[in-house]
């Protein structure tokens, strides 16, 4: 609060100094013009005096701000911290029945302390603090804040609701996901996921999940943000992602973050569902699908027929992911395609193939050595010779040798 006021004050002073200095300059110029026109006699000093006086005041205020504001701010910080810790102690005492409830209304610092304390707890103690939120009618205050025209108030209300995780506030929070303001939409989505995580017995057909998914499909949340929001809480994300996968069709801008979230949360049980999108026409989504399959260590049977096509796709990222996916197979199965991709037109793919072969251990290293002698493509021979090594050497010596070759 005081920081915001201090910042406003500083900008006002700066603006005043600039305006007054310009006015003083204009006054000086006009005075001298009159001075010369009137034959060397000053006629009016008043405006000049006022301009110079105000300018002096502004400069003094600026100096005061620069010198004293950090001190004042530190003092307020210290006082705020002390009050915050006192309230934390008070809520803890209330929790362990060492103190009675404080009277209404609560100052903002008390609300912050209550929410911070609530965020640490689960079980009966968390329920007790939730009942305090209801007792002090804080949820009503926050819901009122959501209707405010001021952006900062709406964001503050969403932040408070996110910390309080009150299931009854979910519909009001979801309504904010249709806001014109991007920040509000993102905060509302985050808040909704946190609230969903606190809903007991959550499953993909749960009313709250269905409501969230319906809102999410219509709300315009950027893909990157959506990915991080869907990766926030495993407890909420699993039913949400399952519900999204159960939908007949998902738009590409939603599909990519959904699949990426599966990878982020390492939800191996959803690998088969991700694999169904392997032939999606959008290259970016296909890259994400392959990336997630690699991350989950799942080679879908449907990938085998299209793998060669992926290796020679015009998109480099797809080529690279195809090589990485091949690595999930045993060498006897992946060998023909890896041998072929050693002679790929793109250097990056050739390099990735060598790395993939080296990951297989002695058998892969042997194949790299064979490529130096027998591969029909000169580029393959060249890249293989760069990584040629003795499979019998201990691993550290081999790494040293590779590093030496690369340098």
């Amino acid at each position, binding site marked *: 609060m005081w920081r915001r006021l201090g910042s406003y004050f500083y900008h006002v002073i700066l603006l005043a100094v600039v305006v007054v200095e310009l006015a003083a300059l204009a006054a000086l110029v006009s005075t001298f013009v009159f001075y010369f026109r009137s034959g060397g006699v000053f006629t009016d000093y008043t405006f000049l005096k006022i301009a110079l006086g105000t300018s002096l005041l502004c400069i003094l205020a600026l100096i005061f701000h620069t010198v004293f504001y950090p001190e004042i701010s530190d003092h307020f910080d210290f006082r705020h911290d002390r009050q*915050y*810790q006192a309230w*934390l*102690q008070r809520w*803890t*005492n209330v*929790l*362990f029945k*060492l103190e009675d409830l404080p009277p209404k209304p609560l100052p903002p610092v008390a609300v912050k*302390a209550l929410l*911070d*304390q609530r*965020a*640490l*707890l*689960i*079980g*009966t*103690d*968390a329920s007790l603090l939730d009942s305090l939120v209801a007792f002090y009618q804080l949820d009503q205050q926050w819901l009122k804040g959501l209707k405010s025209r001021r952006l900062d108030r709406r964001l503050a209300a969403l932040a408070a609701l996110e910390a309080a995780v009150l299931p009854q506030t979910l519909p009001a929070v979801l309504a904010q996901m249709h806001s014109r303001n991007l920040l509000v939409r993102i905060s509302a989505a985050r808040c909704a996921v946190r609230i969903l995580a606190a809903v007991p017995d959550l499953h993909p057909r749960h009313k709250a999940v269905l409501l969230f998914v319906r809102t999410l499909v219509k709300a315009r949340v950027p893909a990157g943000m959506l990915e991080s929001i869907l990766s926030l809480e*495993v407890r909420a994300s699993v039913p949400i992602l399952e519900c999204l996968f159960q939908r007949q069709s998902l738009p590409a801008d939603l599909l990519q973050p959904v699949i990426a979230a599966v990878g982020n949360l390492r939800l191996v049980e959803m690998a088969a569902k991700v694999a169904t999108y392997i032939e999606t026409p959008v290259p970016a989504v296909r890259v994400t699908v392959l990336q997630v399959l690699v991350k989950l260590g799942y080679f879908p049977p449907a990938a085998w027929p299209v793998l060669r096509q992926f290796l020679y796709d015009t998109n480099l990222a797809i080529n690279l992911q195809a090589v990485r996916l091949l690595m999930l197979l045993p060498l006897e199965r992946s060998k023909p395609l890896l041998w072929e991709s050693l002679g790929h037109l793109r250097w990056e793919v050739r390099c990735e193939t060598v790395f993939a072969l080296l990951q297989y251990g002695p058998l892969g290293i042997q194949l790299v050595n064979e490529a130096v002698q027998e591969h029909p493509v000169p580029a393959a021979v060249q890249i293989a010779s760069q990584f040629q090594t003795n499979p019998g050497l201990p691993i550290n010596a081999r790494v040293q040798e590779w590093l030496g070759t690369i340098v």
Partner: protein
Amino acid sequence: MTNKALTSLPSRFSVSNHDRNGSTMSLSSTHSARIFIVDDDPALSILLTTLFTKNGYQVTTARDFHTAKQQLEREAFDLILLDVNIIYGNGLDLLSYLRQSLQLATPVIVISAVHQEATLIRSLELGADDFVYKPFNPHDLVKQVAAILA
């Protein structure tokens, strides 16, 4: 003789003879276990201090790495509750310092807000005795601490 042996231990036992004939003896606790809480979050620190004090433990707290390090060098504790994120350092570095440099086998419970397998494995590798994720049930934590100290 038994009394002498037990009182020489840095633990909480004492021997008293309740029988006037000198035939029976009993063991009793002379002081409560000392818990050291290292956490930068005042909310958690205050909560744990109140919780364990209420349950009869002696609690010392530190917010940052250097203070915690100095405290560990100066005093002996029965149990340490260590947050992964602390000011001016990392809780796991402090754990490593405790086990490797100070060579102390004090039981340590690591607390973390981030559900990361890597952190859990690393802390157990460094010698943590248990691991608690935030949010947690305070009563379960008290039971955990009591079980370790038993």
